[in-house]
């Protein structure tokens, strides 16, 4: 079985502040981390692989990311935790990608991995990325790969014999779904908690290669990647008003209560 886990590097802090003098956004260009939802996907992959290996099956977990060169360190950390290999798609031609262009690049990466390790049976993603919050990559990948798909998966019930069964959030509740492989799953945080690496894992990962490839190396058409391949454009971004001010609600208790009702309705 071949499991591909798609991970994204996101800023360690998603806090956005406004510079009060210049009225522009200030972001801490600091550390990045593996998107927490993707960390869950990695754990699900690692546990499934362990289970399949115990059942005597060969199993490989490949980690795939598109990102800046510094993302390599995060992929190495995934290796320390038990992934078998890592591929980083890094190229100026990938920059500025929206979800469609990202999906295309990832699908090229998956095709590259498939040449070495066979077509993936499962592609696992986080339910969403904490910096973009779009939750689109998983279903877009499924459509692109022609795979079945389950989103917001809370639990993987069984896996094997050409199908995977999951419990996923659906309208009105949760459903147990059976998906023929290959399948794309997007994982909710509650599905698992990523294990920590062991000393042995950290030491082994230090010696393992992280494959870093550009657009040409994975056969990507650069008209479909990055900014050029992105149908959507950000016209402007801004910090919402309410979050950097504390508003006093004055008046008599009755007046305060009426104002609170308005505020509460605004939140809904």
């Amino acid at each position, binding site marked *: 079985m071949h499991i591909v886990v798609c991970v994204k590097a996101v*800023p360690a802090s*998603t806090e*956005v502040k406004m510079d009060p003098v210049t009225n*522009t*956004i*200030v*972001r*801490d*260009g600091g550390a990045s981390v593996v998107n927490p939802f993707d960390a869950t996907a990695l754990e699900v992959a690692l546990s499934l692989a362990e289970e399949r290996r115990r059942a005597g099956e060969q199993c490989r977990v490949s980690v795939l990311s598109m990102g*800046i*060169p510094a993302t390599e360190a995060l992929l190495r950390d995934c290796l320390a935790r038990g992934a078998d290999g890592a591929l980083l798609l890094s190229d*100026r031609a990938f*920059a500025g*990608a929206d*979800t469609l262009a990202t999906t295309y690049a990832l699908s090229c990466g998956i095709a590259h991995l498939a040449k070495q390790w066979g077509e993936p049976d499962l592609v696992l993603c986080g339910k969403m990325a904490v910096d973009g*919050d*779009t*939750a*689109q990559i*998983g*279903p*877009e*990948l*499924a*459509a*692109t790969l022609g795979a*079945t*798909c389950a*989103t917001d998966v809370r639990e993987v019930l069984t896996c094997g014999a050409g199908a995977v069964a999951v419990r996923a959030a*659906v*309208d*009105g*509740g*949760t459903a*147990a779904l*059976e998906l*023929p492989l290959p399948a794309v799953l997007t994982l909710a945080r509650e599905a698992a908690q990523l294990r920590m690496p062991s000393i042995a894992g950290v030491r082994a990962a230090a010696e393992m290669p992280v494959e870093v490839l550009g657009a040409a190396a994975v056969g990507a058409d650069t*008209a479909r990647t*990055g900014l*050029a391949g*992105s*149908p*959507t*454009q*950000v016209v*402007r971004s*801004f910090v*919402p008003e*309410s979050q950097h001010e*504390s508003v006093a*609600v004055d008046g008599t*208790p*009755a007046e*305060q209560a009426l104002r*609170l*009702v308005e*505020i509460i*309705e605004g*939140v*809904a």
Partner: protein
Amino acid sequence: MAGLVIDAERCIGCKRCERACATVGIEVVDRLARPTEGCVLCGACVDACPVGAISLVRDGAAQSDLGAYHDIWVFAQVDRDGYLMPVARELTAKAHELAAARGCEVVALVAEGEFADDAAAHELIACGADRVLRAHDERFALVDPELLASWVCALARARRPEIVLFGATPLGRELAPRVAAELKTGLTADCTALSIDSETGLLHQTRPAFGGNLMATIMCPVHRPQMATVRPGVFAAPELDSSRTGAIEEAPLDADVQPRVRTLAFERATSSSSIAQAKRLVVVGRGIGSKKNLPLMERLAELLGAQIGCTRPLVEAGWLDYAHQVGQTGVAVAPELLVSIGVSGAIQHLAGISGAGTVIAVNEDAQAPIFGAAQYRVVGDAVEVAEELVAALEARGSAGTPPSASSAC
């Protein structure tokens, strides 16, 4: 040449771009900004530049036949019991408003089981649809995003809508990206505002990112259709106008399409769950005075559709169970709305509510640290304010209740 272009004549080397960048993707050397290998072309620096020296230059290919696309489509979702979901009404009404600005028709798409009647279609017309495309098919008796995507894509390819809107429900959040990928077009998730740009006629889609810390307005200029999802409850529910008329057209699903995913079981969501997952929370502290005021707070929580949490002293005093304790040593919570009543805001407590969206704090002490974590501060007697709030909510009837359980998922 596509990418980040810096006008050396304009750049003053002020480094605001550096500070706005989350990926160390731009640096100022010798008073001139330049992109580094960390640049992901996100455009944050473009907005931050005070002198307009930075721009994103694109050279992507445009679709050649943009003019052939027209009308605004709404995917109108029905729930498990066959009823039109509120978000479908909200979107149809919004589409009606956008169509007026754009000068086009509103088309609602509804896929139902084989025994469905005309109720949903009529309702959609009453909400503002000019035309309803529908399929009554046994394959739609169970919700299957893959089948629905195939249906929507086939219709879109044949009829070329300019805009397609989906509810950001669990189904919509899977269906819309599938459709976008197949049609190779853009999609903006979870929009909180939609408008038609008066100059270009393009759809402006505004959405939160970074957990709501940042808002972005997005458009899709040279690909069609322009697609967006919208969370339930974001747009107002319309008044139904039963005098409106519209066409109802059968649009059958391709006979060759067969479901691949099997639903083995379905479990309906129950309303009571842990405070960690609660979308709304009422958190009470020592300031509510005595245990006898607890029922009042519980009533308030009920009216708000909220769970109840409390501070550590209340648990220690035995007023509420440990499962209700919010804070570093209790449960960390991240509701969209947190109404904090009579909580002074010990550090341990504040650490546990840092993930909350909107915080309303009620406390007698104007200096209470809880106000530092609140967007709205109410200085006053906790019990008095709570009593008035309960009265106001009761007077409002159901207006204060949150979106239905299904859409809150």
